[in-house]
Structures are given as C-alpha cells and as structure tokens.
C-alpha cells in the first residue's frame, strides 16, 4: 500500500492508495458540495444535479454515458449527502483510463433543459418513494428541529415544491461555483497506475477553472425537544433521536464511535440486550456520524405503538445509566475487536478503500492507512469515552416519533 498525491495547477487534487496486489481499481470524483451549501430557492439542487451529471455532455449523449460505463464492465454509481457529492466506479485495472475519461467528461455536463425536465420527474418519484417508507421524512424533520436554521438541517432531497419549481438556470449557476477545479478532487484505490493517472487527469481536467468556492460554517446552537407526529396508516411506531457528538475534525471521534458501538450497535450492545434480544422492539440502535464542524449521534427505535412509551423509557434509562456510570473494560474490549475486524474486512475491497481515502481527504485532507485506523481504535481508553460522555451527553437530544400514536402517552 502506498499513498500518492498530486495537485494540478488549477487546484484539482489527485489522491490515491496504490495496492499492487488488488484485482480492481476504484476511482471517483469527490465534490465538496451538498445540501448544506444550498439556499432555500434551490433546496435539493445538489442531488438533482447528481442525476443530471449522467445526462450527457457535449461529447456524449445520456445513452452514450450509460452505454460506455457498461461497456467497461464498470460497477458505478453516485450519491449526495449533506456535504458531498461523490461519483465512483470500480473497474478492472486495464480500464483505468477509459473510466477516468467518462467520469471526467460527465463532471462537465451539458445540463440540457429537456433532460432537466425529464429527470425532474424521476426526482419527484424518488421523493414520493421515501415519503412512503420509514421514517416518512422524519430524518429531515429531526435535523430541522435540532439545528434550526443551520445549513446542516437542509434536506438532501428537497421537497416536491422546491424541486418542482426549480429552473435549469438555477442549477447551472450552482454548478459553476460548486464544481470548480479547486472544490473537488479525484481519489483512487486498488491497482492504480498513479503516474499514468496524473497524465490522464491533467489532459482532461487541466483546463477547468478554479473558483475559490467557500463553504459557510456558521456555529450552531442545537435545540432539544420532543415531538410526536401522528401517521395513522403506519403499523409500527418509530422513534428518532439526534444528539451532538464529536465532529469530523475532532480526534475524539474514535471514542465516540466505540461509545456508539458499546451502547447501540445492532448486536451485542446495551440496546441490543435490553430491547432487541427480548423481542421488545424491531430495532434499536445508536450510530455516530461526522460532518464538518458538527457530529451527531443518531438513535433509532421501532416497535409496536402500544409498547413505544415503555421502550422509550427503557432506552432513556440506559442513556442515564451510561451517563452516570460509563462503560466497562470488557465492553470496550469487545467493541474494539468488532470495529477493528470490520475495518480489516471492508478494506479488502478497493471500492471500500476508495470511500475511506476519499472520505478522509474530504473531511480532513489527510490520508489514513488501515493500520492508522486500527491504531487509533486501539488507543481509545475508558477515560476518553468518559470525557466524550461528559462533553456530548446522550441525554441532551431532540426526539421525534412518528406512527399510529395520536399523541405521546403521559
């Protein structure tokens, strides 16, 4: 494994973890843009744009794009989050240049109006689809309640209204600044020919312009509260919770991840033994998610509406106990074994390493090897977990519940 990096004159960076023994190459364009960079009038544009990127360029029609990806046998996709838009593909090493050629080309899409109108229908269907599925839009709602007007509260999908009203020129304007050479980078992992990659990127992306794009990072003041949203047609009751946690640039994030594993992993955790193993709930979990300047603990519980209040009390009680007593050596040992094995198992696929290399570069502009991550996990002490509990209490949270309950039982 060898880390290599290079920066073009226009500011476009290339980072790669080269592994001679890998069977494939993972390659991606990581764009530092997402829902948090939008304004009210273009809510959902990052995600909509992600779809439009596949709709053709001056050199390729939409059909060409899909066809050529498939001709290379590529396994490819894209996703948009609150702060990134990522386009990626895995191919056999001999197709490195071919796949880069397509990916680089579609990063400069035509954004034709007729394609825009057609794809808008697909996005509206996607919005409808999520509205029918648990948690029925409450993942957006809870961010709004917790972060108020802070950009992190913005919905990735947008709404039927904002997407419906959006005009193609608004998207073009957004694209100009956000997809500038210095606001994105190329990442690669696996059997990468890095010297060739520099030349391949230079010849296709060297003329892109930088824009000195900035992301606004206003401080936030999170709110706490409890909200019950009735949805008579659901069968189960869903409870979501959001609490502040260490952010992406905070070294305490490793302790937070282990804390979340001990408290709320989907197997062997405190929530598991208290709620899942006895069959009281369909699922109960706690995860740690990191963003620039903010981190979150996200809890999830689903069970029958009749049992919801009692299960909620059980979960709250576990949070109180954790806050008062912390965790044990045995729990920490178990969580570390589990997390380290996951790191190693997932590292065997270049595609997973691509997300790891790209994610670290997005968040911190740093490279971390598998060994670095294993070391960081190993180094966490119970004292550090204790400090994280004190700094970021699980009990200071926003709660939203949705389901058949008309109102929350007192």
């Amino acid at each position, binding site marked *: 494994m060898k880390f290599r990096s290079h920066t073009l004159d226009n500011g476009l960076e290339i980072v790669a973890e080269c592994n001679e023994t890998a069977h494939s190459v993972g390659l991606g364009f990581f764009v530092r843009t997402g829902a948090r960079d939008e304004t009210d009038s273009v809510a959902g544009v990052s995600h909509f744009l992600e779809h439009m990127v596949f709709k053709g360029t001056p050199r390729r029609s939409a059909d060409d794009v899909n066809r050529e990806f498939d001709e290379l046998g590529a*396994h490819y996709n894209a996703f948009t989050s609150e702060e990134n838009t990522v386009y990626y593909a895995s191919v056999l090493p001999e197709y490195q240049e071919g796949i880069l050629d397509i990916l680089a080309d579609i990063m400069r899409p035509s954004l034709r109006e007729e394609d825009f109108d057609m794809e*808008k229908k697909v*996005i509206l269907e996607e919005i409808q689809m999520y509205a029918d599925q648990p948690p029925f839009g409450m993942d957006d709602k809870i961010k709004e309640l917790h972060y108020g007007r802070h950009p992190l509260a913005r919905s990735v999908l947008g709404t039927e209204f904002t997407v419906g009203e959006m005009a193609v020129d608004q998207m073009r304007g957004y694209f100009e600044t956000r997809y500038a050479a210095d606001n994105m980078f190329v990442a690669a992992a696996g059997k990468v020919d890095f010297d060739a990659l520099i030349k391949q990127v230079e010849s296709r992306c060297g003329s892109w312009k930088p824009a000195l794009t900035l992301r606004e990072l206003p401080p936030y003041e999170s709110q706490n509260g409890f909200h019950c949203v009735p949805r008579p047609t659901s069968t189960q009751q869903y409870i979501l919770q959001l609490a502040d946690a260490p952010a992406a640039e905070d070294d305490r994030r490793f302790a937070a991840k282990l804390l979340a594993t001990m408290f709320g992993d989907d197997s062997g955790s405190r929530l598991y033994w208290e709620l899942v193993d006895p*069959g009281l709930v*369909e*699922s109960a979990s706690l995860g740690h998610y990191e963003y620039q300047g903010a981190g979150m603990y996200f809890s999830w519980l689903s069970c029958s509406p009749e049992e919801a209040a009692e299960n909620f009390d059980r979960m709250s009680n576990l949070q109180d106990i954790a806050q008062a007593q912390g965790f044990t050596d045995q729990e920490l040992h178990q969580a570390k074994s589990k997390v380290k094995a996951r790191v190693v198992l997932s590292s065997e696929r270049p595609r997973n390493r691509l997300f790891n290399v790209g994610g670290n570069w997005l968040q911190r502009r740093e490279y971390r090897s598998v060994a670095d991550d294993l070391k960081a996990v190993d180094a966490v002490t119970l004292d550090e977990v204790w400090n994280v509990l004190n700094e970021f209490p699980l009990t200071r949270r926003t709660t939203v519940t949705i389901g058949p309950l008309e109102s929350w039982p007192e």
Partner: protein
Amino acid sequence: MTATREKKLPNTIFTHRLTNGMTLVGEPNDSVQSAAITLLVPCGYSADPAERLGLASVMCDMVLRGAGSRDSRALINDLEVLGVERGESVGASQTSFSAASLAENLSDMLTIYADIVRRPHLPADQLDAGKLVCLQEINSIDDEPSQRLMIELRRRTYPEPWGRSSHGSEAGITAVTSTEVEEHLSRYYRPNSAILGVAGNFDWQQLLGQIEALFGDWQVNDVPMILEEQLDLGDAHVEFDSNQCHIGIAYPSVPYRDPDYMRAWAAVGVLSGGMSSRLFTEVRERRGLCYTVSASLQTQLDRARVLCYAGTSEDRAQETLDVTYAELLRLREGVLPAELSRLKARIKSGLIMQQESTSSRSGSIAREWYHLGRVRTLDELGQLVDELTGPMINEYLEAHPPRDFTFATLGPSPLELPREVS
C-alpha cells in the same frame, strides 16, 4: 477468461464429503487476511407445517440463544470478541449462517458454529422473546410497501410452499411451542444435504481435520418429501394507502442447474443489468416514469422465476406497467450483439471483483454445490461467459419466451392488467 488467469486468481476449489453426507467446499486464498464461512443447513421455510408458518425463522433465532458451553450472552459476546461479522437468513430450502472474521479466528469461529447448529440450548424461557423478534419483523414489513409487494408477487407466482414469505405468519409464529422447536430442529438440522463453504486465508488439510472432528459424528436424518399444491391466489391488487403504486410482474425461467441457465441469466441481464439495460432505459431514462425499476432471476433448486419490480406515483402507474410489460414481450425478439458484449464485460468484472470479498466467495461456492453438486472456479465461469453468443441467447428466448405472467400490485387503486398475447 485469460484476464483472470493473468491475475492469478486462486483457482483451486477443494471439496470433501463427510460420510454423513455433509459437504465441505473450500477456496483458499493466501492474498487476503480474512476468512469467511457460509453454512447451509437444510431447513427452509418450505418445511414449516402449514399451521406453523415461521417455525424455521423462530428456530434460526433460537439457535443463537446459547449453544454448547455458552449461554445466550456468552455466545454473542464471544463471537464479537472474535470480530465475527455474521448474518442468518431462512430461504426456501435452507437456513444460511454466514460469518467472516480475520483468518486467525477461523478455527474458533467454526467451533462456535458447530455448537450453534448441533448443540443449541433452545432455552424454553426465551421462546417468547424469540417469537417476539420474529413477529417484530413481520410488523415492520407492513410499513415497507415494496417489500410487501414482492412477498405477494412470490406467493402468487410459485406453487405453495415455494412462494411463502420467509418470515412466516403471525398466527404460525404465535402458535409455536418449545417442543415443536426441539422436534423440528432434531429432524431438519442435519448433516445430509448440509453444505459448508469456506473462503479466505486458510490451510485446506487443517480445515479438513477440524471439520471431520466437529461434524463427522453428526447423525443423519431423513425427512419427508415436500408436496406442492396450487393455492387460491385471490385478487392481484393489495389496497394500500401510499403515494406510490408498486408493481410486480413474474414469469417462469430455468433453475441454476439447467444447462440453459447461463442463457436465461444473460437475457435478464439485458433487461436489467447496468444503466444501459432495457428497463432502465425505457422506463426511467426515456420516460422518467419511476426511480426504481428492475428485474432479476431468482432461482430455487427445481424452479426459477424472473421477478420484475417498479414503483411509481399513482397517476403514472398504468403507463409504467404497460411500458414494463411491453419490454418483457419485446425480449422475445432477441438481444442485440452490443447488448451482449456490454453484459459480458459486466459479468466478467463482477466475477473478478467477487474475489475481493471472502464472504461473497464462501456463499457462492456453497450455493454452487447446492445447485450443481460441484463447484466451478471463477476461471471456468469466465470461460462460460466468453462462450455465450447472441444466437445462443436468442435460441433460448425462442424456446422460452417470457410468458405465463403473474402480476401483483399494491397501492391506492388497482391497475388494468394486460391480457396475455401469445
């Protein structure tokens, strides 16, 4: 497939049959740090008594509640300390236990899994908990319209008991007793027809010795044949209060062990594999009718179906159904050379990338053995893909055109179903 040979894929697959009928299939690969197992126990939902639907699912939960020298908590905790990533699922004919960890933990992991399938405690005082876990899963599906639709489609397209929901029914699970769990387990958790697939960094001879020691004295048990029957299917539409309408279409295909399987699979790949495939192009890209549309070939041992799904808002549902159905009919006209060559490229890179996950390899080799009674290397599979030609697929499609369709819809109102043209 020369490309794979150049990449020095591990192309040795070992197999060994224990005298009690259990088969061990192993693919060692010393270029990885992990090892993974897939243990297929011949106890599927098809063997659930009709009034106990969900029994296999309850058992799958119960066997993890303590086994051998470990109680429920010790079992889960020890697996976690070994860093085991695990998963269990109940299929038509088997319960599948999969587990992966660092290679040095393989031996300990196998010891625990031998206990799980051979010496589970099945604690009576935890039966209610186990049943509740299974009931929770059923309830959660009520809120997942696309899953509900696919369960309904499978129920309609397969003869009973092959199209049952793997989760069982509320009534069936509620009725399960401790004695039934014990009896069903002693009958169906058995070595004859059990298959263990192992992939990753391990030594075959050493593994062989351990497996003989762990499973060699597992007692054979014979079970009654499963009888098929055709149930009354009822209405094709399930009324559901949702924004979107969910559409399912199924038609018969050939199972994995059929010599024509590769052709059938390729034909479905042209329909729905990659973004240049027909369904994605015609339904989503050209018409913007939906976000999700797909088709896949689902195979059991003796029967297979192609299952198609599309989800879209109510006012466009009829058009979505019509366009999707038209594509299925158009497949009868055959596939184009360019479509086939794209498909081959995708399959071949998929085969090579499969090698990058020991979990997926252990599952693949165990299932190959189940279907074929032998296991092909990735090299051999690559060659079969190379040999596929357009005329071969078109010949197959001529002999087996998509027909005998089954429909299911779920949403606010029913759709007009096509009347079959043959």
